[in-house]
């Protein structure tokens, strides 16, 4: 494959403006925190399926609640940022997410699935505000030309948090759950006691997350932060009108939102159902299944750093295309090879996912200037993919088996590959070039 160096202006400025390095590190903690919460939620689908003895579809409502909150709060988050600034947005997000974490306490006392869904909704609402604020905050911390790489670096710590989240699930929850076969001979009282015990396990890591969020809140609240001014915007659209019209007219942005929808869908489906695939198709124990998910996250983390490096050499869109196609192949393998090889293929999907979110984010927002505030909200709203598509995946599992369910992320990754192909074929001027011509 021919390699083409990135066509960008020379970068002599640092990746992060010097006076913003400490705030950048604090934001990295936020990226890690929401990775922790999001990936612990991936474990919950399988856990609740077992505890409440429900179908895959019913259990997948966990992701509907979580990512549905992301979708609903993205626009309000953008208004908070526009009105009060990114720092306020980050603090509001952290605070609301902490409240959601603490709501797990009444949820585990009431033993009600609906209450857990509410707690997850509130937690995710806070994290949505956090993410909508933190991503453009990071983009604005240096030169626009290096924004994609800076965002990739910051987001590299999201999988660090994700790994910690899964580790907590693998250590604190999964190995200690009541064995499924033991429930076949339990009395009603014994089943109730088992439910209480298992839900008590779920509570512990969420209290840890809530505590960490409170700590980060305090560190950011008492730190003065100044954002550099935005670069001169490049008018890439032919139409006039408000922000929304400009954004919608921009095909790179419009298709980018769709690609992000499918990327988040693929990612959520892959990680949510890895544990179920491991148990249902290969027959691992819940504890072992947790370690397979952990392997996925470790691979994601390593790949994220590798991709950060490769993005300095290859065009982002080309790398995106190659990795999306790889992901499709892995999905097909997991469908047809019903043993540990299929499970390894499921894990390998994470390598393909690693660069997608920040790369699609960067490609979509490139050159938007002040429209980036609302533009980022649209991209965060694409997280709706994580709310809607896992339900489809679960429905396929209920109808046709856990292996065939992976056709759903396969189709999603094919859509991401199509976006990458579009970007490769429709290049746009680099930042500043349009101004020079004008």
């Amino acid at each position: 494959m021919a390699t083409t160096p990135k066509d960008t202006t020379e970068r002599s400025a640092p990746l992060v403006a010097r006076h913003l390095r400490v705030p950048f590190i604090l934001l990295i903690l936020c990226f890690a925190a929401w990775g922790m919460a999001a990936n612990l939620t991936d474990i919950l689908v399988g856990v609740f399926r077992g505890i409440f003895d429900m179908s895959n579809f019913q259990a997948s409502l966990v992701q509907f609640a979580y990512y549905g909150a992301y979708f609903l709060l993205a626009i309000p988050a953008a208004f908070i940022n526009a009105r009060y600034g990114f720092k306020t947005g980050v603090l509001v997000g952290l605070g609301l997410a902490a409240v959601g974490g603490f709501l797990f306490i009444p949820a585990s006392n009431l033993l009600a699935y609906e209450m857990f869904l509410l707690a997850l909704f509130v937690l995710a609402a806070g994290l949505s505000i956090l993410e909508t604020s933190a991503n453009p905050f990071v983009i604005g911390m240096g030169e626009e030309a290096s924004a994609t790489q800076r965002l990739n670096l910051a987001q590299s710590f999201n999988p660090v948090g994700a790994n910690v989240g899964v580790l907590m699930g693998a250590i604190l929850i999964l190995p200690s759950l009541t064995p499924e076969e033991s429930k076949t001979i339990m009395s009603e009282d014994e089943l109730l006691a088992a439910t209480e015990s298992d839900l008590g396990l779920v509570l512990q890591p969420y209290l840890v997350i809530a505590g960490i969020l409170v700590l980060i809140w305090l560190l950011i609240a008492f730190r003065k932060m100044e954002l550099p001014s935005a670069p001169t915007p490049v008018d890439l659209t032919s139409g006039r009108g408000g922000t929304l019209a400009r954004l919608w007219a921009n095909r790179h942005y419009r298709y980018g939102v769709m690609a992000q929808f499918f990327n988040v869908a693929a990612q959520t489906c892959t990680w949510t159902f890895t544990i179920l695939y491991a148990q249902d198709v290969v027959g691992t124990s819940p504890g072992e299944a947790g370690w397979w998910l952990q392997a996925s996250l470790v691979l994601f983390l390593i790949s994220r750093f590798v991709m950060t490096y490769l993005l300095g050499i290859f065009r982002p869109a080309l790398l995106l295309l190659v990795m999306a196609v790889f992901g499709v192949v892995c999905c097909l393998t997991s469908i047809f090879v019903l043993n540990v090889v299929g499970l390894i293929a499921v894990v390998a999907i994470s390598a393909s996912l690693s660069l997608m979110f920040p790369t699609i984010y960067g490609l979509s927002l490139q050159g938007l200037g002040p429209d980036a505030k609302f533009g980022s909200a649209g991209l965060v709203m694409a997280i709706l993919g994580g709310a809607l598509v896992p339900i489809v995946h679960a429905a396929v599992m209920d109808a046709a088996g856990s292996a065939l369910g992976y056709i759903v992320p396969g189709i999603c990754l094919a859509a991401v590959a199509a976006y990458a192909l579009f970007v490769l074929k429709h290049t746009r001027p680099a930042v500043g070039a349009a101004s020079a011509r004008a």
Partner: protein
Amino acid sequence: MVGAVLSGLTLAGCAGEEQEPVSVGLITKQEENPYWVSMRDVAQKTADELDVDLVTATGTSDTDVASQEAALADMVEEGVDGILIAPTDPVALLPAIQEARDAGVVVIALDTPVHPPEAVDAFFATDNEAAGRLIGEYAAAKADDLRLDPQVAMLNLSGNISSGELRRMGFLEGFGLTEDDPAIVASVDTRGDRDNAAVVMNQVLAEHPDINVVYTVNEPAALGALAALEDADVDLDEVVLVSVDGGCRAMREAVRPGDIDATAMQYPQNMAREGVRAIAAAVREGEAPMGFLDTGTELVSDDPMDGVESRRVEFGIRTCWGS
């Protein structure tokens, strides 16, 4: 920071009040069959969770009485509080079991009964008649669904081994057949062995090529019957093959692809878990185990039939025994 919190939570989980020491002996039949390996593994896991000391021993075959007698004597000598034993013979081990009980050791039979049942403190096993009934009901429903005129082959265990007899009786009841029903065209013993089952099934097919319902006492017998059916180029879609066991290998290789239409699962894991718990409770809480504990059975099929409650194959994959 996170590591410190995680460590704290983990250690908090480990710390607890000191419990009265308990020692449990587990005697299985042999180590070749993954059924017994699963039983031992879950017994060890449960013992670790309950802070119980587990001592294990095993025979060399399903008929090795001498090794089990020696193990019983050794464990009594070591001072165990209770013994879990899957007896290789329902009568020959009674003197050794009685000596253990006379020494104050709680004895629970697992999987296989002794005669008389009162010779042990308790018996934890599958309700084999219920398991047979489940697969009988399923087979009848499926035969009806396929509009078959049932020609039933019964591949039994051997002699009058109680577990095999109970399954056979349960199947007849579930299917709606009498002992001398003309629908039963063949009834043979397999010793629960795959190769034997293949041989006898070949013979049965030679005499009765129209067989369309096959009852097998366990999954090794089912796999042998399957091999014979395939050798005879029988259309498996027109044959209802049912079994009892719930082993992971058969679940993946035969139940999931639909070659075995349904199986009633057994849970050696439950036998082991409840056995260790019962002896620990006897020592620490004074609750002596007694009577029969049904350790559960579930019907698993990839082709559910209306009116017959069953679980999906994925449930079977998750809860099967062996590897």
